[in-house]
């Protein structure tokens, strides 16, 4: 049986403890993050505010000229609701010179430039604010590689990286994320009218159930087909997971010496803390 229901109280407790622990142990008490108005960054924002106190959290809105106004308004509603610190940094002036430099610029490239520009803003502000950058990637997008490497995937911590999108929705309800944010169609908002599910070609509800079998329950793809998932859908998802694995790991180092980072020089990041 596929049941993705989570205990939201327990989830919040574990993640809030994780945020506090991972910041405090390296001498930080503040966090910042990009807040798009979407559900993932909303959940990351609410968790950060609960874990660290709203005064220790900086929410940054980083609209591009095509960003939708209602998304910006949703972000503002949440900022006001929580009482976190906030800032708006327009990225159009940073993005357009590069986008306009090339005649063959594509939607995808421009989208990646926007995501990476936001990364630059966040990591720059992390120094000014003396905080760590919180990620907003969920398990579904990490597994599917539905992100821009070194862009929206860049963060110091990934608090919701082990929750499927369906579970993020449940947690959002528990945390008090506004219903408008929970209900709207997920979108990277990199171009007008973009939706995740439109671009991916399947719904989160379906792919989460499939990923749960493939990843958590270690089903073979063939068995998922027997369980009623369409063969082409299963194959597409398996291929996506494999092809995008490079986004989930550090770049491989060519091994030459007796002791090489990543192979036989092995420490947790929390080494000594």
């Amino acid at each position, binding site marked *: 049986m596929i049941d993705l229901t989570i205990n939201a109280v327990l*989830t919040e407790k574990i993640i809030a403890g*994780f945020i506090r622990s991972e910041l405090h142990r390296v001498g930080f008490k503040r966090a910042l993050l990009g807040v798009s108005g979407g559900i993932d960054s909303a959940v990351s924002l609410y968790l950060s505010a609960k874990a660290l106190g709203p005064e220790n959290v900086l929410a940054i809105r980083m609209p591009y000229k095509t960003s939708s106004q209602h998304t910006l308004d949703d972000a503002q509603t949440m900022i006001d609701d929580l009482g976190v610190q906030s800032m708006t940094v327009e990225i159009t002036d940073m993005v357009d010179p590069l986008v306009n430099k090339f005649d063959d610029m594509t939607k995808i490239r421009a989208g990646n430039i926007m995501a990476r520009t936001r990364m630059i803003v966040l990591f720059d502000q992390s120094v000014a604010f003396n905080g760590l950058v919180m990620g907003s990637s969920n398990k579904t997008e990490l597994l599917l590689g539905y992100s821009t490497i070194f862009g929206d995937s860049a963060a110091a911590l990934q608090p919701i990286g082990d929750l499927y999108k369906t579970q993020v929705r449940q947690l959002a309800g528990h945390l008090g994320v506004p219903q408008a944010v929970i209900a709207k169609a997920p979108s990277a908002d990199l171009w007008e009218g973009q939706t995740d599910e439109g671009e991916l070609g399947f719904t989160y509800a379906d792919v989460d159930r499939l990923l749960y079998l493939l990843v958590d329950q270690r089903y073979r793809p063939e068995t998922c087909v027997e369980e009623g998932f369409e063969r082409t859908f299963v194959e597409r998802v398996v291929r996506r997971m494999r092809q995008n694995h490079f986004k989930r790991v550090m770049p491989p180092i060519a091994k030459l010496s007796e002791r090489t980072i990543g192979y036989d020089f092995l420490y947790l990041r929390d080494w000594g803390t």
Partner: protein
Amino acid sequence: MKIKIALAQFNTKLGDVPANLEKHLDLIDEARQGGADLVVFPELSLTGYALLDLAVDTAIRPHQDDPVFNELLAASQDLDLMFGFVHEDRRHRFHIASAYLSGGKTRHIHNKIYLPTYGMFDEGRFFAPGDSVRAFDTRFGRVGMLICEDFWHASLPYLLWLDGADMLLFASASPGRGLTQDPRLSSSGWVEHTNRAYAGLFTNFVVHANRVGYEDGLNFWGGSTIFDPNGDLIVRAPDFEPALIITEIDLNQLHRTRARLPLLRDERIGVVQRELERIQGNS
């Protein structure tokens, strides 16, 4: 006989033995003030859990010549201690170990036998497995120690029981996992079921100290427990929060439970031995 056991459910600093030693000494002091006779620390309490390459740097020799070990020996003059450390043996093999100290002396050292090396675990890569399991005598009777994965193998608690242990002392650094609708993680529920089962099946006390805190993304869920020989829960520390829980247990419960339920008396070691030999001969 009634004794007070302190469960030292705390968080460690990864790879920092001096800092962890200090926490041990503070908790031992607090337990002493609370009248504890025995303090039980979690697995690898002197070092932290996911050591990887730090394993060799944090290893100590369980001997009074070692300054860290010697401090704990000194602290055990007036109450008994069980704690976890990386044990570098005479041949320079590194073990995950628990030591039991009493009256300033080492009473027993257990090297973890089952090193989980699957899924999220990689202990077999960094540590040598222990190869013996023994009960030993204390001033509270005969006890046995096991470390985490050791007691996921029913044979080890069973052997300790047959070897005379009336109290099983379990230490863990158990990473929490298995999020469902339940208010506790599946890993917490599973460990607690297992410990309750051992207490009931062996009509023994089962004492379990588990740590709290985080190492990278791993959470350690705490929830340390003591079960009595009826399999009833005597105490449970909170999940995820550090706590020093001091609880009195009545060792006379062994008499009462075993008078009612003579499972130990009726255990047929000869049958077990004969069938094990047959099974081993067949395989």
